């Protein structure tokens, strides 16, 4: 133990101005060549810790030591110079530039005064790509490149800047099982060539699959750091949440009722002219959860938004309990019984600067008891907020706080609270646990099942295969705007099998005349 660890955090403490103690005396040590997993609920403080490490935040007290030497990281510039590279959960690539241009962005190889050498860009990218086994096409435009490759581009960016320590934030959130395997292979290769990898994840299965050590953070404190081999997933989950977490959510066998929502020949064309939905036909029955699996970008987003009334279909018909609602807008659909948990809660599900109270009534403010004669009744608004906060365990100092102040998991709980409290007939849930911690995910899953048991028809769109396999009574797979598979025996499905359909490798032949999903 003579060589100091490549990274050490000692007593890192950070309190936000609103009083939250995000990091409470956190100490962590990572050896060179280690793969270290950091797990914890949203709001536990791991995001803050990584921000401190990357120079996006400053600790109130504590030390960061790199290779034994104390370091001050005032800005991401400093972090990069010190060899720390970060791959964020939401990629920061310029879609209209090529892979090579993105890799060198900000530090382009130049000849003379500011003239970019394009050949050098390509050469550098290719060399890095081969050196670390991260296959990319340097000349491809980023916006047409699949998600897995985009992630590799992000990793190459950090390597180009000389990163020795790579921080990966939720790297597998958007990947298929096959792509996840590719990523893990790449991580092992990176580590073999001397890099150190820290990755933040909620997926305990992956922690077990790839990490050497795991640190559990809860409420700003390190609960424990241990070798991954010494713990089970259940034990990690328990440490994260502080109690037994029933992630194997049980549900009764379903007896589907009447057809709540039917759609035939649904087509949607994006403003750019791309045909995002091709002749989709679906039926949702009361008391069932229909899962929609698929890699993002294959039409799932459009499907949900067309059903919700946010996007106009180019062709096709949508019926709710027999009534044609195709011509109705969002309010009409909501009044017909649709509720919608959107995949991007900040863009669609919430007004970040409006208060929690105001966010909770957007679908009902015009009705009694929330308003009368055009005037809002504040008391009803407040009571509604109190109930939602209590019932869904939303952690917030008050209902007046802007929604922006909440953590990701609590924001999602807020959205779920609002959508479910309208007792919908049909619930559209798109990526309902994305970026959400274990505790909140569990709550969301329980609520989805409860809604289904109460007779709602639930459409669950998710890129998280575990989630979609656990919760769905029936399952369809979308690829390239079409439904390419339909499964009624979900427990028998494996993630591997699903992966093939998701990648378009396999495809169920549509029965003659019958729409594939019914």
């Amino acid at each position, binding site marked *: 133990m003579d060589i100091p660890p490549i990274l050490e955090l000692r007593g890192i403490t950070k309190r936000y101005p609103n009083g939250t103690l995000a990091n409470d005396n956190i100490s962590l040590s990572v050896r060179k060549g280690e793969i270290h997993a950091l797990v914890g609920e949203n709001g536990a403080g791991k995001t803050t810790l990584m921000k401190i490490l990357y120079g996006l*935040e400053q600790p109130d007290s504590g030390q960061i030591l790199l290779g034994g030497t104390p370091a001050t990281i005032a800005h991401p510039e400093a972090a990069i110079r010190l060899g720390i590279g970060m791959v964020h959960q939401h990629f920061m690539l310029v879609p209209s530039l090529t892979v090579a241009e993105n890799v060198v962005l900000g530090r382009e190889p130049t000849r003379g005064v500011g003239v970019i050498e394009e050949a050098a860009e390509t050469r550098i990218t290719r060399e890095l790509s081969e050196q670390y086994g991260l296959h990319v096409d340097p000349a491809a435009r980023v916006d047409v490149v699949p998600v897995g490759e985009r992630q590799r581009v992000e990793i190459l960016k950090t390597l180009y800047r000389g990163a020795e320590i790579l921080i990966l934030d939720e790297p597998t959130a958007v990947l298929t099982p096959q792509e996840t395997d590719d990523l893990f292979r790449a991580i092992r290769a990176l580590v073999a060539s001397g890099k150190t990898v820290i990755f933040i994840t909620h997926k305990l299965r992956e922690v077990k699959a790839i990490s050497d050590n795991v640190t559990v953070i809860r409420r700003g404190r390190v609960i424990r750091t241990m070798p991954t081999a010494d713990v089970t997933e259940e034990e990690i989950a328990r440490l994260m949440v502080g109690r037994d977490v029933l992630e194997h959510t049980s549900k009764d066998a379903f007896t589907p009722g009447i057809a709540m929502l039917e759609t035939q020949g649904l087509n949607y064309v994006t403003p750019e002219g791309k045909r995002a939905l091709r002749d989709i036909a679906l039926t949702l029955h009361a008391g069932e959860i229909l899962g929609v699996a698929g890699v993002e970008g294959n039409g799932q987003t459009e499907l949900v938004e067309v059903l919700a009334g946010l996007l*106009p279909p*180019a062709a096709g018909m949508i019926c709710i309990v027999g009534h044609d609602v195709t011509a109705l807008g*969002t309010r009409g659909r909501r009044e017909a019984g649709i509720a919608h948990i959107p995949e991007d809660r900040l*863009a669609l599900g919430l*007004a970040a600067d409006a208060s929690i109270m105001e966010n909770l009534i957007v679908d009902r403010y015009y009705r009694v008891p929330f308003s009368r004669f*055009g*005037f809002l009744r504040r008391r009803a608004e407040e009571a509604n907020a109190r109930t939602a906060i209590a019932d869904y365990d939303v952690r917030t100092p008050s209902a007046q706080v*802007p929604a922006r102040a909440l953590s990701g998991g609590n924001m999602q709980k807020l959205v779920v609270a609002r959508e479910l409290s309208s007792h919908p007939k049909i619930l559209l849930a798109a990526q309902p646990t994305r970026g959400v911690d274990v505790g909140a995910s569990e709550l969301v899953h329980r609520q989805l099942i409860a809604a289904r048991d109460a007779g709602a028809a639930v459409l669950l769109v998710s890129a998280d295969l575990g989630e979609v396999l656990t919760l769905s009574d029936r399952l369809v797979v979308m690829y390239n705007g079409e439904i390419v598979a339909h499964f009624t025996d979900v427990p028998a499905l494996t993630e591997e099998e699903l992966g093939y359909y998701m990648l378009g490798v396999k495809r169920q032949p549509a029965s003659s005349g019958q729409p594939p999903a019914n």
Partner: protein
Amino acid sequence: MNRRAVLIEVLRVAIVIVVALVLSFVVILIISKEPGDAFKQFITGPLANRNRQGNWLVQATALTFTGLSVALVFQARQFALGAEGQLYLGGLAAGFVALYLPGSAWVVAIVAFLAAALAGFLYGLIPGYLKAYFGANEIVSTLMLNAIATAGYAFILVRYLRIAGGNYSASFTVFGSTGRMRPLIEGTQVSAVIFLALVLAVGVHVLLYHTTFGYELRMSGFNLRFAEYGGIDVRRTITLAMGLSGMVAGIAGAGLILGSFGRVNPQPSNGYGLDGIVVALLARNYPLATIPAALFYSYLRVGADVMGQNTDVPFEMANVIQGIIILLISADALTRWLRVRRSNRAGQAGRDTLELPTPAAPQTITSTQTTPTASEVSD
């Protein structure tokens, strides 16, 4: 809104004002041979006599109206700059009523204000409708409509309203010898319109924060896609918001024509329309705050006018200060610096949790019920 947020906002405005005044003093120092006297005229000028005090209040009243008008649309995150044109048309409508409607002073006044409100409302609906249903950029449309309104006003005035005898304006007879509404303060133009401004400020506040329409407007301003997702008819909301904003600006015009001039004046507005933007910015788009903001800003205008008349510093100083204020008040960096002074940067993802809606990038609307147009949603 919690107390801390209010405090920070007040502090922010106060700092901006102080800095602007300091900078303006520096400029005066440079260009004036007697800077001390010039600055003294600037700061104390408006209070020197009744005439100037009245001027101050009259300008403040007009600026309250236009400030409210702009605050309304800014809360909806629409960059509609049509207050000037709406003011002109409102003034014209009021003028018509005052000239041709028989009846007592009270009746005429009330009908005139209603006519002005209607004229402003309709004129405001135009850019609103164009924006909401066609995605027409409201900055461009309102500025052009301003030009149309002011030119149309002049045309009608010269062609139809000119009193035979050569005077290029049409005086009212209904209010008395001066033609103006009865002044509250002798020797000034301050009339009951000032109360109307206060009432309207309260009215807009109630509208924004206590009605369903106000909720729709604010949510559309916070996040247009969210409002649509929740079921709000954002097109109708945006259109109406601009209409209401025009209504308030139209009332400003009536107040000036009836209260200040007593006739359909060739130039009823002294830049009140565009200065309404400064007032709204100073008031951070809060209706009740437009009153102190208008009082402050009109004080500056009158002070600069006094200084311009009595010293070697030109009136344009007021524009310089105005520019400095606009630059500073829009600077997000100032707010951030205020927060960093307490501790490190706050909130999720490095964004300020207490950031109030500033008029940032104007929002556009994707169509829901018609075929998708090529408009993006920016936020």
